């Protein structure tokens, strides 16, 4: 198996409500993959089924290698110290504590701190360290940077890239599109229990059409335009300014953010 994860025909219902309607998904080894979807799309259910934390009705899930899981909703006993939690899970998984990993995540600073005294960001880093303790091949990260400050976020992004460089596969669930755009090799958008899109960020841009945002700064102020055909539109806009004898100071053209494309697919509307 060259893929880190293969999901075929995954179905899951809660009573009469079908949450996953035969989902197929494939993640290449060594990729950082993002699973996106609006609230209620079935992301958490799908992740929990893959992680083995929830039963599914039908379909198959094949995972190559060991898993490390950082859940969004996980906790530890209030009075446990950081280093004790690390040692407990390391001993249970017969793993050696990777000191450099703890240092990279800043968990070594939390060694003597009890869980109840930790901030949200510190708890999140500790749970990530616990997920990595058995040196997993595929790492599941559910909202890994939620609650982190800017510095923590940047350092975690760097660490995720380090994990990728080590050959690990990462499945990321995040609402932070900037994070997904900067980190991920490929993405999947889950909509109404099915994969509405799977591919790279560039492929998503192609899939939603060549939609451009044009921002022009002139002597009279800043104006923005939306266009599907960049060539014709830009010429037409510039001609308009020329006819009015308006000085142009700056022109910026972008193809829309991942967030805009995501919304377009996930909600089925153009924003």
């Amino acid at each position, binding site marked *: 198996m060259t893929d880190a994860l293969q999901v075929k025909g995954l179905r899951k219902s809660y009573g009469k409500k079908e949450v996953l309607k035969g989902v197929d998904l494939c993640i290449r080894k060594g990729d950082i993959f993002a699973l996106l979807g609006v609230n209620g799309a079935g992301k958490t259910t799908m992740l929990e089924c893959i992680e083995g934390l929830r039963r599914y009705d039908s379909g198959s899930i094949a995972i190559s290698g060991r898993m490390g899981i950082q859940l969004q909703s*996980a906790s530890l006993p*209030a009075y446990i110290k950081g280093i004790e939690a690390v040692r407990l899970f390391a001993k249970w998984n017969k793993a050696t504590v990777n000191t450099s990993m703890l240092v990279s995540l800043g968990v070594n600073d939390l060694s003597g701190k009890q869980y109840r005294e930790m901030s949200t960001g510190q708890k999140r880093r500790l749970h990530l360290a616990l997920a990595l303790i058995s040196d997993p091949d595929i790492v599941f990260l559910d909202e890994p940077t939620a609650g982190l400050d800017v510095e923590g976020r940047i350092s975690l992004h760097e660490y995720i890239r380090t994990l990728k460089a080590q050959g690990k596969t990462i499945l990321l669930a995040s609402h932070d599109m900037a994070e997904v755009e900067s980190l991920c090799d490929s993405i999947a958008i889950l909509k109404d229990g099915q994969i509405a899109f799977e591919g790279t960020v560039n492929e998503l841009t192609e899939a939603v059409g060549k939609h451009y945002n044009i921002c022009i700064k002139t002597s009279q102020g800043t104006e923005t335009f939306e266009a599907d055909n960049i060539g014709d539109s830009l010429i037409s806009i510039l001609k308009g300014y020329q006819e009015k004898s308006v000085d142009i100071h700056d022109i910026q053209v972008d193809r829309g953010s991942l967030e805009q494309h995501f919304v377009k697919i996930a909600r089925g509307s153009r924003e």
Partner: protein
Amino acid sequence: MNGFLYGIALQWKLDLRSKTMLITCYAVPLLFFAVMGGIFTSVMPESRYTLIQSMTVFSVTMGALIGLPPSLAEIYRSDVKNAYQANGVPLSFGLFLTNISAFVHLLIMSFILYVIAPVVFDAKIPVHPGTYFAGVTILIAVSLSIASVIGLAAKSAANTSMISILLFLPSTMLSGIMFPNNMLPKAFVMAGKLFPATWGYAFLTESTFIWNNLWPLLVIFVIAALLCAFLMKRIETRQ
């Protein structure tokens, strides 16, 4: 040291840090012993013959029913269980660790009472210490099994307190440690037989091994263990 042994040692430390166990297993029973021991032996001098047993039954019942359920609820009614599952630790791990730690605390407290009661109140030491401590061990195990059912069944840590009190009060009031059983109305005597404290106290106060006081404890233990297995299965099976 493997994960299980490390977990037991760690749970022991966590119980000491949380102070719930310290209060329910040591502080309150010792206070109760100091106050009630003085009253019992002053009002009824013959109570010194059963003082060690009555104080031990009170301590074990309190430590188990009030002390253990919040620790279990903290694990199984919160996201702690998610962390266990996600990191490959069996969910029953928490149940075993908390029970073993509480068992040791309660055994220590029972031993403390066994040593200090004769010194402080001239209490009479049980005739057969071996049989006595075997009885204490069984009583602790049975009380913890009921406490485990409460901890696993309760919807939250706060919820455990209410259920624990509902079981703790009749356990101590109807077991014979506060009032002699022959002074209680018949219905109360019958109700008291539902609780391990009654049978434990009867077993511990006898100078010989009485099987009729033991088998009800074993029946209660088996029923509680089956309930724990059922509740654990329900927690493990996330639909």
